[in-house]
């Protein structure tokens, strides 16, 4: 892809949510505006390469999309509900809201509680991320038709819910923003695939999630959890160059080549989380980011401050308990106070079926047994974990641990 085509693509993706926000604010109908925007984006990708990028590309897109919207509105109105459409137009209140709020309102609309998580993900990537249906499908590893259907159903559902394009009341807003964060983290984890296959044309969803979290952070800089989410993503993504072998196998944290970690991302993530912890009420994303920061600042695995990680997991257990948190805390305990302490705690935790049945239970058990020197029993646990995981790279790794001679 030549650089100016890539530049135009990036520009269109930057502008897409701003243009959509302006359109919906002015015309009122989210689904029709989204259709109009898609048509304007297609027009831009065909016209700009030959005629050049307009001086004010955002205004150009708004004009073209508005024209498409009005064309469609006229033909629709001729057919049926002219009055209803007129009422919507009359109720729209252009100019009352800043463009900054537009993007935030779009985020909240795409993560509307009436939508299922897969629909929220698809709509957010399209309407705020400015990705095409095909790009989203390649990122999510599902057929394009599935994504197209999720988006069109989501738009219908938003229309049916009668949601107006404006920021929800403060009371409602916190819960809605939490669901936006969940959607962004879901996009991020979907993107953290260990696949090392050809990535040509494949949109990196983890990069996209970071870009979106950054936008959200710009709009709400004082929200500690949003800062924590962005920091968590940066500090996790920083390790990705060292996370896989060229053949796609997982490299555990303790064996990664730390010189390949992204130092700039670590610096940015650490600064973000440090500031958030000092200024905002603590929350689960901040704690997870703080744990990632402690890992990332250790130059060698043996320099890792496991006592601090344990303290952070203690807090996380209180704020956001769950099987994964319990199991990760036990690993930290084993590292800080020795495998015997970890194994004892693991035996106690086993009473909880959600933990005993969790596929990570056997992996943690194997890890602690290895540390304790009981390699034969550890191998059995790894073999059991390999049978229970739902991740191919993890399964390959666990199988290799089950085979290893030690």
């Amino acid at each position, binding site marked *: 892809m030549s650089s100016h085509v890539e530049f135009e693509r990036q520009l269109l993706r930057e502008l897409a949510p701003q243009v959509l926000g302006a359109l919906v604010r002015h015309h009122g109908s989210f689904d029709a505006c989204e259709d109009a925007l898609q048509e304007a984006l297609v027009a831009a990708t065909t016209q700009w390469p030959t005629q050049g990028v307009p001086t004010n590309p955002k205004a150009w897109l708004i004009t073209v999309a508005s024209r498409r919207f009005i064309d469609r509105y006229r033909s629709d109105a001729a057919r049926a509900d002219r009055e209803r459409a007129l009422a919507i137009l009359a109720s729209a209140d252009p100019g009352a809201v800043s463009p900054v709020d537009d993007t935030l309102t779009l985020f909240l609309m795409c993560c509307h509680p009436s939508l*299922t998580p897969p*629909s929220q993900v698809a709509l957010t990537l399209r309407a705020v991320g400015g990705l095409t249906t095909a790009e989203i499908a390649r990122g999510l590893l599902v057929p394009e038709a599935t994504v197209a*259907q999720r988006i069109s*159903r*989501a738009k219908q559902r938003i229309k049916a819910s009668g949601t107006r394009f404006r920021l929800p009341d403060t009371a409602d807003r916190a819960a809605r923003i939490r669901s936006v964060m969940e959607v962004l983290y879901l996009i991020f984890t*979907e993107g953290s*695939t260990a696949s090392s296959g050809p990535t040509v044309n494949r949109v990196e969803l983890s990069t996209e999630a970071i870009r979106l979290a950054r936008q959200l952070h710009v709009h709400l800089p004082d929200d500690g959890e949003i800062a924590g989410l962005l920091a968590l993503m940066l500090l996790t993504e920083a390790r990705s160059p060292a996370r896989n072998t060229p053949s796609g196998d*997982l490299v555990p944290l303790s064996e990664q080549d730390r010189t390949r970690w992204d130092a700039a991302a670590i610096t940015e993530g650490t600064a973000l989380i440090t500031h958030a912890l000092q200024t905002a009420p603590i929350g689960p994303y901040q704690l997870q980011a703080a744990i990632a920061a402690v890992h990332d600042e250790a130059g060698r695995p043996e320099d890792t401050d496991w006592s601090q990680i344990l303290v952070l997991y203690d807090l996380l257990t209180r704020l956001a308990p769950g099987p994964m948190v319990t199991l990760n805390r036990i690993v930290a305990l084993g590292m800080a106070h020795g495998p015997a302490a970890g194994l004892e705690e693991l035996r106690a935790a086993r009473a909880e079926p959600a933990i005993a049945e969790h596929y990570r239970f056997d992996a943690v058990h194997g890890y602690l047994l290895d540390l304790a020197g009981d390699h034969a029993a550890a191998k059995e646990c790894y073999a059991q974990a390999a049978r229970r995981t739902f*991740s191919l790279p*993890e399964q390959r790794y666990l199988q290799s641990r089950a085979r290893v001679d030690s």
Partner: protein
Amino acid sequence: MKYLILIYSNPESRQLWSQLSAEQRRGGLEAYTTLNEALAATGELIVTEALADPTTARRVRVEAGQATATDGPFAEVKELVAGFYLVECDSIDRAVEIAARIPEAAMGLVEVRPVMALSGFEV
């Protein structure tokens, strides 16, 4: 996560189907249509297909770079895959809930298999 829901058929189920009245058969097909629409509406459906009769299947073998296709040894097999759904949903409980709406579930011929993912936790 993605789940593959497999629908099997066996001699009893095939016989039962052939004995249904036209109306009963229509009811069965309607159950599928309703389910497909519901899954499309939630965005959970990725693909669903019914498979042709096993007598039309081919077993493929490559030897010394040569592919040969023979009629499958399926005639002797009692339970055969008759169709499938590939869905994406929150949990296996939800996948089981979907599977329970498939008419063949009344005969115990529906199975839910989790699909392996490419993403994984850092170990």
